[in-house]
């Protein structure tokens, strides 16, 4: 079988969508009947590529610009593929070049509100990283085809519980402190990660508690000012960009990972923090709920309720035990591969019946 993935970014990309795409490509390449996976990315942020399987064709030239990408897609449209995956709803128009309907992948906010519907109608199936994203996508698109929920996966073996690194403690002045951490892009246009909500309760928390905001973005200065206005500037650390190889050690510095977000399609960072054995607080009102398996893996809070966030933080600082929570295997990469193969079987009319949307059947949103 030959698969094609049109996507925003994958190898050499940062963030949740790029990671999901890399995992998807890996899972497709591992399918017993797979002959080739072709990836056509819009962007490549860094040049350091993961080592690719020989049956993965990564069309790096497509990322040179819009025109290059369209030309690359046009070339691929002349080839035969068994399944065409469209990795982002904004790329759907390009799938018109193919004589077969694509499988759309929806991640989060990009699919929570309407885009032009004619393109949706020509879609064969929709994969979502969470039930929430699927439901919100369906609520406006009224898409009637099959839907699949395919949650993000984490390679547990790459993380694990580890001691706090002394040099990092020193770098950010965290020795002897209790550390709260949120990791993510700090973008003014996307103020939904909950940085503000955690900052606002800092004055009510014990003085030895420090909040580490990890990541970079154009909203950092505003948050710095806010911390100063709240009188907690000395207890808030901005790390700036964190390199991939330091990520696990960064998580390990935290006593509690807290993300009272409202716009996460899933919240992969929650999986990473849990894989490092850090107790986590996630949101009841976005995909975080599913990343924490409805509260079985971590504490859920209403991001709009400061008292709930404050209590959850204090509870976990008091009693939270380090350790990878039982039940994390649900998000193990091996399970992700199984799910992808089940979707492929289902789409290609195989014998194994994959029930649309039933992957997370144990989830019940309250």
């Amino acid at each position, binding site marked *: 079988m030959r698969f094609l993935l049109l996507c925003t970014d994958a190898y050499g990309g940062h963030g949740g969508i790029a990671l999901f795409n890399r995992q998807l490509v890996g899972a497709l390449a591992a399918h017993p009947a797979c002959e080739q996976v072709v990836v056509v990315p819009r962007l490549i942020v860094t040049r350091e590529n993961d080592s690719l399987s020989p049956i993965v064709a990564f069309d790096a030239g497509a990322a040179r610009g819009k025109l290059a990408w369209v030309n690359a897609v046009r070339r691929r449209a002349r080839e035969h593929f068994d399944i065409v995956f469209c990795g982002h709803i904004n790329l759907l128009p390009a799938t018109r070049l193919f004589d077969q309907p694509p499988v759309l992948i929806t991640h989060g906010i990009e699919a929570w509100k309407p885009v032009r519907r004619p393109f949706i109608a020509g879609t064969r199936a929709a994969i979502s990283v969470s039930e929430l994203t699927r439901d919100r996508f369906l609520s406006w698109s009224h898409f009637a085809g099959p839907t699949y929920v395919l949650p993000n996966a984490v390679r547990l073996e790459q993380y694990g519980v580890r001691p706090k690194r002394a040099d990092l403690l020193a770098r950010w002045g965290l020795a002897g402190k209790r550390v709260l951490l949120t990791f993510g892009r700090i973008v003014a246009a996307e103020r939904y990660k909950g940085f503000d909500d955690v900052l606002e309760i800092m004055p009510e928390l014990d003085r030895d508690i420090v909040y580490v905001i990890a990541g970079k973005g154009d909203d950092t200065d505003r948050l710095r000012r806010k911390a100063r206005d709240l009188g907690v500037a000395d207890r808030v650390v901005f790390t700036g960009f964190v390199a991939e190889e330091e990520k696990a050690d960064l998580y390990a510095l935290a006593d509690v990972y807290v993300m009272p977000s409202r716009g996460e399609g899933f919240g992969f960072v929650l999986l990473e923090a849990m894989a490092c054995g850090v107790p986590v607080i996630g949101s009841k009102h976005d995909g975080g709920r599913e990343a924490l398996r409805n509260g079985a893996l971590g504490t859920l809070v209403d991001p709009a309720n400061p008292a709930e966030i404050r209590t959850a933080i204090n*509870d976990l600082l008091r009693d939270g035990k380090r350790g990878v929570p039982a039940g994390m295997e649900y998000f193990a990469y091996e399970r992700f591969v199984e799910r992808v193969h089940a979707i492929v079987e289902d789409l290609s009319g195989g014998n194994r019946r994959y029930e649309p949307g039933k992957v997370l059947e144990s989830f019940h949103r309250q």
Partner: protein
Amino acid sequence: MCGIAGAFAYGGGAPPVDRAELQAMNDRMRPRGPDAGGIWVDGDARVGLAARRLAIIDLSPEGTQPMTDVDGELRIVFNGEIYNHRELRARLERFGARFHSSSDTEVLLQLYRHDGEAMVDLLSGMYAFAIWDPRAGRLFIARDAYGIKPLYIADDGATLRFASTVKALLAGGRVSAAHDPAGVAGFWLLGSVPEPYTIHRSIRAVEAGTCFSVDERRGRAAARPYYSIAKTFAHARGQESIAELVEPATLLREFVTESLRYHLVSDVPVGAFLSAGIDSTTLAALAAAAGQPPRCVTVTFDELRGGADDEAPLAERFARERGLPHTTRVVTRAEFRAELPKIFDAMDQPTIDGVNTWFVSKAASEAGLKVAISGLGGDELFGSYPAFRALPRLTRLARLPLASLLARAARNPKAKYVRRYAQTYAGAYVVKRGLFMPDDLPMLMGRDAAAEALERFDVLAHAAHAIEPDPETTFGRVATLEASLYMRNQLLRDTDWASMAHSLEVRTPLVTAALLRQIAPLLLARGARCKQYFAASPEPPLPEWLRKRKKTGFSVPLKEWMELAPDGTSTRMRSWARVVAEAFALS
């Protein structure tokens, strides 16, 4: 569920607590809790608690009150429902708390043990409770964020008494019934007695969203406000972009369904009040979609039958289309006249409202229901009252030099107050929503009482206090005024006495702090359009014939029933207020 009462002789020279007084208070509240009653007085009679119970969650005898914790130390009386009690229990169990029942009442005891008075920040529900902590020699009292459940105190400086109703406090026989001109004036000006006043000098309401404690050493501490609608709106400013992440109808469906799921938790069937309005029909549709189709009850009046204001045929059609069990109950003038003495007996404080809720509650009770959800609060939440448009206009008008002349030309009886009051939102609210105006008070309550009332109750300052801190937006200001004044002092209070008289618990999924926090950014971003998004939120959305219908209030044909204001010199509501005042011997 329930009515609660108690007394704490905290002062040195206070006489011991009298069991017979507690018994008398409890007996006055029998309709609030017909299933069981209990009284507990501690060994040296310094403190006593009493409760009447309407069993809705945990019907076993373990759920009866006054209740003690597993260690037999703390005691509680509690009126209401804690909707998030399961989450709270799970959290407390992680910290080793033990329980002897499955009731939410016991969760309050363990939560107090674990979090102390900060416990109120974690509660979601409607409640009034008192916890006796013998080790600290302290009584802790709290009331829910919106004031859905009532609670009154009488503190003579040595003994603090409390009860769910003003009339129960008086029934104990130790609290003076002397009238308070400030509270009486409040009734004349606003149509209901504004918190914390009552019509009695000795009795005060525990204000919504506050808590306080009384102990033997320090006496009664000042009440601590722990919730503010104004602050919620102020905080939502700048979060509009977050609200825009999701389709408004989808967002409302998710959040209101979440609220509904909590409000549908019950060990007895839950019904619903149904009119032809958007709030009640949408709630019924969302409840059905959540797997709990409610039995719906609609009330209509003989005088309206067949007319444009008769909502029954529309409600019936909606229930039929959605497959909801439905009952229409027709109320006649004869029935109203026969019930009037009972209505005034149950009416805890004078109010110009509540008769409609009395009959729909009666109908629900006749239909075998103990619990019903109501769309109350939807107009305050989604900005559908005329005040949302009128107040900004009034404030602009009031700033014009010839404002009073213009208003007088429009033949408005409140004309001369436009320029005087309406330059601020609080003042405009008083002009728009007021029943009588301050200058009418001497005529209504006598010159001396009016003079004292005006000195002690400044209606403008009272309204202005509701919007502190300033919500800063027009929508936030009007919504806060409506929810803190009209909804709190009239709608919710009337719903409480009128439903409890029929042993019916009314639940209000649109009146929760959590829901407001969640959707406040959306309300600021989209304003009054949210009502239509709400109507579109069920799947399938409400039908056009309901959505496009002109809004009508749920009002009783009092004019016809009582032959009010036949000469046309006064408004219907002003005349009805005089009838009510007479029943309370105010005039």
